[in-house]
């Protein structure tokens, strides 16, 4: 499955044609491949305000072999990192403008802008809160101005969460975040294990992926396996043939299970205990749509979507939490939500309700997970090019795919990369969050 328009617009003839017609020319995104350096070029690092994370950022860049440029260097940067922690009022934001304007002008295609700030809610004064909140407007707007597949994102780092910064910073700089744009991600203090293997960060871990037979679920299984995990691929028995192919492709195992069956939690827990002695990563990806306008929707459509998309996630997670020792220390649960759950979507009251419910679920569960040194998060995909979107009418599909800052639909692998990253040890400081993988969609922004 690929975005044919992006491919066409970047071909010889296509490039000429779309330019003459004034059509958007979406960039080819920089996506992660094993062995790829963190950045394809040097980075500019600057501060606005106190800049208490400057040394942390500097170390992340240098550890990854990235040359750190001064703001006035001639070389074109592949990334600009602004440490705006400690801004006390709007006046200090001038420094942000002074750093970003010249550096972003010289930013290479598929570049990255990452801004680090403090959480506005924890500000001591209204002026401080205003300055902190202002960063959000700056980053969201800059993300819309960037071209060439470049992205801008904001990390909110409270006092004491310095150790949690490296993982998210690396994610936003790397090709793993290709379709994550214009987002604000809060981190929290956590024990982050040191010295994780960046090539195979999930080595030795067992990961369950529901809905793994095709589409985004199959992509998640592939990326988790690439990152070193043993994947237990779960899907309904009727999808078993495709499921077996995915399991064999990724060197994992296939578990045919209807997650809405009353005994599904017991069977999943038993399987993980007997076959693997426990589980490290659980990805709740299985989901269905049964679209109808609310007034025309029968109970069966409503109930089926709720059962698969929400109730099963609650029941399976509860059973894993309750089963002694099955959910291993440092476990990661990642739920697939949806843009529809944030913005709503005509004809999807049931689906959007279930996906919004998922967001409520991960937020509510975050403290219990944190107490175990574990995390629970959601990923909300935007317009992702799958078999499902391929069946949409051409005009609806093409318009839907362009309504974002990157002017293209995302790929299943983009969602998978975000999920696999949240499963990494280095993402320990991200808990109870909803990470959108939507290219900064105009919907629900």
């Amino acid at each position: 499955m690929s975005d044919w328009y992006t491919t066409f617009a970047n071909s010889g003839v296509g490039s000429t044609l779309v330019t003459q017609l004034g059509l958007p020319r979406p960039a080819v995104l920089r996506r992660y491949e094993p062995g790829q350096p963190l950045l394809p070029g040097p980075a500019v690092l600057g501060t606005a305000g106190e800049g208490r994370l400057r040394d942390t950022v500097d170390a992340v860049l240098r550890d990854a072999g990235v040359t750190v440029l001064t703001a006035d260097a001639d070389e074109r940067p592949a990334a600009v990192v602004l440490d705006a922690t400690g801004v006390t009022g709007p006046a200090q934001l001038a420094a942000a403008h002074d750093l970003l304007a010249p550096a972003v002008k010289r930013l290479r295609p598929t570049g990255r802008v990452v801004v680090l700030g403090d959480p506005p809610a924890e500000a001591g004064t209204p002026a401080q809160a205003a300055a902190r909140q202002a960063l959000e407007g700056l980053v969201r707007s800059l993300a819309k101005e960037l071209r060439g597949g470049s992205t801008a994102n904001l990390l909110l780092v409270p006092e004491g969460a310095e150790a949690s910064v490296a993982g998210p910073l690396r994610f936003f700089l790397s090709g793993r975040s290709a379709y994550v744009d214009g987002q604000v991600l809060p981190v929290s203090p956590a024990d982050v294990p040191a010295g994780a293997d960046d090539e195979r960060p999930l080595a030795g871990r067992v990961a369950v992926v529901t809905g793994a037979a095709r589409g985004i679920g199959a992509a998640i299984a592939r990326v988790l396996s690439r990152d070193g995990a043993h994947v237990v691929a779960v899907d309904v028995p009727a999808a078993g043939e495709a499921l077996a192919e995915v399991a064999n492709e990724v060197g994992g195992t296939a578990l045919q299970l209807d997650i809405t069956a009353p005994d599904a939690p017991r069977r999943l827990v038993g399987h993980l205990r007997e076959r693997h002695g426990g589980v490290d990563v659980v990805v709740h990806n299985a989901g269905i749509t049964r679209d109808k306008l609310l007034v025309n929707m029968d109970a069966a459509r409503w109930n089926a979507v709720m059962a698969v998309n929400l109730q099963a996630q609650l029941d399976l997670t509860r059973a894993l939490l309750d089963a002694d020792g099955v959910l291993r220390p440092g476990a990661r649960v990642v739920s697939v939500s949806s843009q529809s759950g944030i913005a709503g979507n005509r004809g999807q009251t049931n689906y959007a309700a279930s996906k919004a419910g998922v967001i409520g679920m991960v937020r509510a569960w975050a403290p219990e997970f944190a107490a175990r040194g574990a995390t629970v998060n959601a990923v909300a995909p935007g317009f992702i090019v799958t078999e499902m979107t391929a069946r949409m009418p051409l005009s609806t599909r093409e318009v839907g795919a362009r309504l974002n800052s990157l002017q293209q639909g995302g790929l299943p692998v983009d969602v998978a990369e975000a999920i696999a990253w949240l499963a990494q040890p280095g993402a320990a400081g991200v808990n109870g969050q909803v990470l959108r993988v939507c290219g900064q969609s105009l919907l629900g922004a």
Partner: protein
Amino acid sequence: MSSSQPRRAAVLGGNRIPFARSNSAYAQASNQDMLTATLDGLVARFGLQGERVGEVVAGAVLKHSRDFNLTRESVLGSRLSAATPAYDVQQACGTGLEAAVLVANKIALGQIESGIAGGVDTTSDAPLAVGDDLRRALLELAGARSVGARLRAIARIRPGSLVPEAPRNAEPRTGLAMGEHQAITTREWGISREDQDELAVRSHRNLAAAYDRGFLDDLVTPYLGLTRDQNLRPDTTVEKLATLEPVFGTDDPAATMTAGNSTPLTDGASAVLLSSDEWAAEHGLPVLAHLVDAQTAAVDHVHGGEGLLMAPAYAVPVLLARNGLTLQDLDFYEIHEAFAATVLATLKAWESPAFCEEKLGLDAPLGAIDRDRLNVNGSSLAAGHPFAATGGRIVASLAKQLHEAGPGTRGLVSICAAGGQGVVALLES
């Protein structure tokens, strides 16, 4: 018996594709296609990608000449290590169970640590052979050295030689179809139409219930769009079956065997994973049951006055005696439903003092069994019976049933086969 008991082979699980009715969902699938897909499903279930299994043993009853080395070729097409050895076996409908016994025996002897036993059959993609006249003419043509000899060979070919020979579901020595043989036995034992239809209905209901409670979730992998056995009729009733016309033994006005209480021609494949306990532990795979012992028997259906499908009735008492068990010591019975009447005649024979004394040489009859422990998850009448695939279906399903019932539970597998043969085995969790 020596003082050191050989170790017992563990049954870890199985996989099969849903069984399809002849000339339907799998009409275009070959034996090799189905066996390869079945092995790949097993590999996916147990994480055996690239694994060098000790040996893969499987077979087919109906084979093309291209099915030479069928099992090894299927292994090479699968995700197992290409360094996994394989060989073919064939014992008619006993093939699948015999394959499991062979693998279990090698494991028991310590010659291999793990193995896969399987079977496959297609009645849709069945081999057609050229007639003997044409075959001889073609062979002569191939060997001819002069133009004259070639012309003579070609001249032997007549239009009638071009009619292909299809495989027949008939006994070579009697010319009778298997159903006709069973019809004789059915009449001899006085098996009623009602009892046969009731057994068939129970088979369908039990299999449907097994699907509904998810029992088959880790035993079956869908194939070519089929997710359940195509022959399964969950809503069939004794009343519906009573309307069918008899198809076997119809020279008798009181014929009882119909398409509803006889197994239809079916396509499919199955495989079972066996190993030593140590191998299972190393691979983190729970043991469902052990294959404790097995026995074969054969009867002389040509001149000996015994029914073609009655050999298991002879094999089971030998197996029980060797293991110090009575028929009633078993918790579950899996008696292959070639025909409903086959199962009923076998049970009746074990209850008959005359049969048990005269034919089996026993002092007392084996006695009756609790019918609620018979084919509890359905059998061939509902699932269908791709000849060589039935043994694997039953072994995996029974092993899981015994595991669910708890440690120390015992189960019997009994399979009748063409040529007057029978293969039976004892499993224990």
